């Protein structure tokens, strides 16, 4: 008779298969609330504080294109792995990582543009409007760093051919998080246009 114990690896694996995705989804809920808090703070501030007009740097638009593309490549990469097209999968997942890095670079460029236009983060020259611009984008980027790390892991594992039709959980978790970051960015970008 084999009794099920926690030390049993099959059992552990089964629990992980069952719970990893819901854990991620509820984690995403909390991130949604975090940004809901921040963006509703912007709306409250807009009603009460002195509000400035800000020229949105075009680099943010380019960022948006990059991150949308990266979601597309991740989607294709994941589907390829699912259909056991390992080489195609590897390439598209690598492309996702590169696009993610390009997004990060364009965010930095956007900040320098903001700074050149006299929008500063803090100090006597700063305004709440400008500070929100930096805070919202930087906090999104902070979450994106987590996504990049997970993409790095997924890339290494896919190069080692650890993923296939049967074993995709890691890719699925990473891609769910990545698509979420894309959606979050699109929301924030539209929101920035709205508040500027």
């Amino acid at each position, binding site marked *: 008779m084999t009794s099920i*114990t926690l030390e049993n690896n099959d059992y552990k694996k089964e629990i992980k298969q069952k719970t990893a995705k*819901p*854990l991620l989804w509820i984690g995403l809920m909390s991130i949604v609330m*975090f940004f809901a*808090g921040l963006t509703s703070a912007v709306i409250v501030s807009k009603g009460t504080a002195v509000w400035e007009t800000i020229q949105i740097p075009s680099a943010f638009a380019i960022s948006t294109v990059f991150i949308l593309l990266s979601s597309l490549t991740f989607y294709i990469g994941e589907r390829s792995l699912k259909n056991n097209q390992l080489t195609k999968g590897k390439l598209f997942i690598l492309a996702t990582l590169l696009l993610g890095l390009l997004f990060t670079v364009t965010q930095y460029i956007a900040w320098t543009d903001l700074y050149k236009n006299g929008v500063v983060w803090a100090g006597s020259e700063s305004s*709440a409007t400008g500070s929100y611009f930096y*805070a919202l984008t930087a906090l999104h980027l902070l979450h994106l760093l987590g996504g990049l790390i997970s993409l790095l892991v997924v890339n290494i594992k896919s190069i080692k051919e650890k993923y296939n039709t049967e074993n995709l959980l890691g890719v699925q978790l990473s891609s769910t998080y990545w698509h979420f970051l894309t959606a979050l960015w699109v929301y924030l970008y539209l929101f920035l246009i709205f508040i500027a």
Partner: protein
Amino acid sequence: MSATHHHHEEQDFLFKYIFSQDHKMISKQFLITGFLMGFIGMVMSTLFRLQLGFPGESFWAIDFFLGSWAENGVMAPDKYLALVTMHGTIMVFFLLTAGLSGTFSNLLIPLQIGARDMASGFLNMLSYWFFFVSTIIMLISLGVEGGAASAGWTIYPPLSALPQAIPGSGLGMTLWLISMAIFIASSLLGSLNYIVTILNLRTKGMTMTRLPLTIWAFLVTAILGVLSFPVLLSAALLLIFDRSFGTSFYLSDIYIGGQVLEHSGGSPILFEHLFWFLGHPEVYIVLLPALGITSEIVSTMSRKPIFGYRAMVTSILAIAFLSVIVWGHHMFVTGMNPFLGAVFTFTTLLIAIPSAVKVFNYITTLWKGNIIFSPAMLFSIGLVSTFISGGVTGLILGDSALDINIHDTYFVVGHFHIVMGLSAIFGMFAGVYHWFPKMFGRMMNNTIGFFHFWITIVCAYGVFFPMHFLGLAGVPRRYYTNSEFPLFDNMLDINELITWFAIVAAFAQLLFVFNFFYSALRGPRASQNPWRANSLEWTAPVEHIHGNWPGEIPEVHRWAYDYSKVDENGDYVNGEDFISQVVPLGPNEKDGGH
């Protein structure tokens, strides 16, 4: 050979007691840490009660506990503010959020739904250790230069945003914010696990409508936590930016010592919005687990099915939903548009409906029951009492027209201590007395428990009931002394009385501490199901094993409240006045709760 053996034992100890991933051990870690913090919070309150009851008098106790904070045994005014702030913070977050949810969600969720452990034992362990680190940082903040945070547990800017504002606004405030950020991470990790475990790992037959009400309460509490704590984190982050980087989210046109500061364009009201969007759900994060525990104990100890199971679940959900749309009732005096105030008044008063449903159901469950007055049952009934008497004054404070008159007076202090503080701590005590045999395999002493309950409830009402009268007379909260105002001279006697009750109540808790540790080590061994209860945790063996049940996980066939069930002849079904959830339904038997 023996060296490696020794090494193994050391490792076992480390992973069994310190870095355990077993939910039962993590639950004990939360309990002990939470109670330790609660004890510190209680000592603080007793000390500042001494100052309020006997303003300016010298006490050896103040001298002993506070040392340099109290010259010649008299508490310094700024230290009074620090103590009030830390008392609130510790009690609300460390004892009644992490201590209560951390202990009972961890202990009961896997055991009552029939799971071997939480969804992720690792995240669960992290949750405790984040909590532990935040505890340590909060305690360290007591000893730093300038003292601990002193802006009140609600840390409103500008006091909290400008390091030079008051002594406690310096390093103490910074550490407070760091500690709370880590605390929020801990709370989120815990909540994630609780929700996913309940939704995904229930045993066969454990449908949502067969869940014990404890589990429903823990589930909704965790959902509230996931929705509201991130908002507090966003508020705290903006505050940190203002404090440490010079942004102006909450600050505008501020002068300190005749100097105008650089900040401009922000609004401190914004912080209040963000804070209370967490702050009000937080009340229910504290309260709901206690209500869940009470449901379970009231039913078991009345030997009757819980009255209105579905109504109980619906009320929990309704309370949770309403709790996120009422935060404005904390802000009626911020210059809020009176129409908006009326909206918040309306949503706030609506909470009375599901709350009344719950109270009604507790009382109808008790009605004509074969009540067993165990200490756990007494504390549960105590909770019903405080939930009523604290709830009624909530109607007064929820109404903007009335609230404006007594805003920030002792009426508010009396109200929330009874409805949230006492109810939650009574629920926690009830839970400890009831599930002690499950946690430690031994029974607590009933007689000491009775003394603990009766002294506590009498003194608790003695402390908080008179505060309503102080508040109605206009005595403001958070003042260092009320003896400077001739207006309040005739209130000094009441303050003295309150302090005496507080001292006795504090000493009565030593009974509990003794009972707890003595029983954990020397108490009589518990049988597997000492309360003859139905829920699944009592089908697991007394000895803890990682995985909870030695063989297969039990299958569930009925709800958890089949007490005193009789057949058509008037005899007990099964020959006992309880039927465990694992017993299959008889041929003509209907499942309860539907």
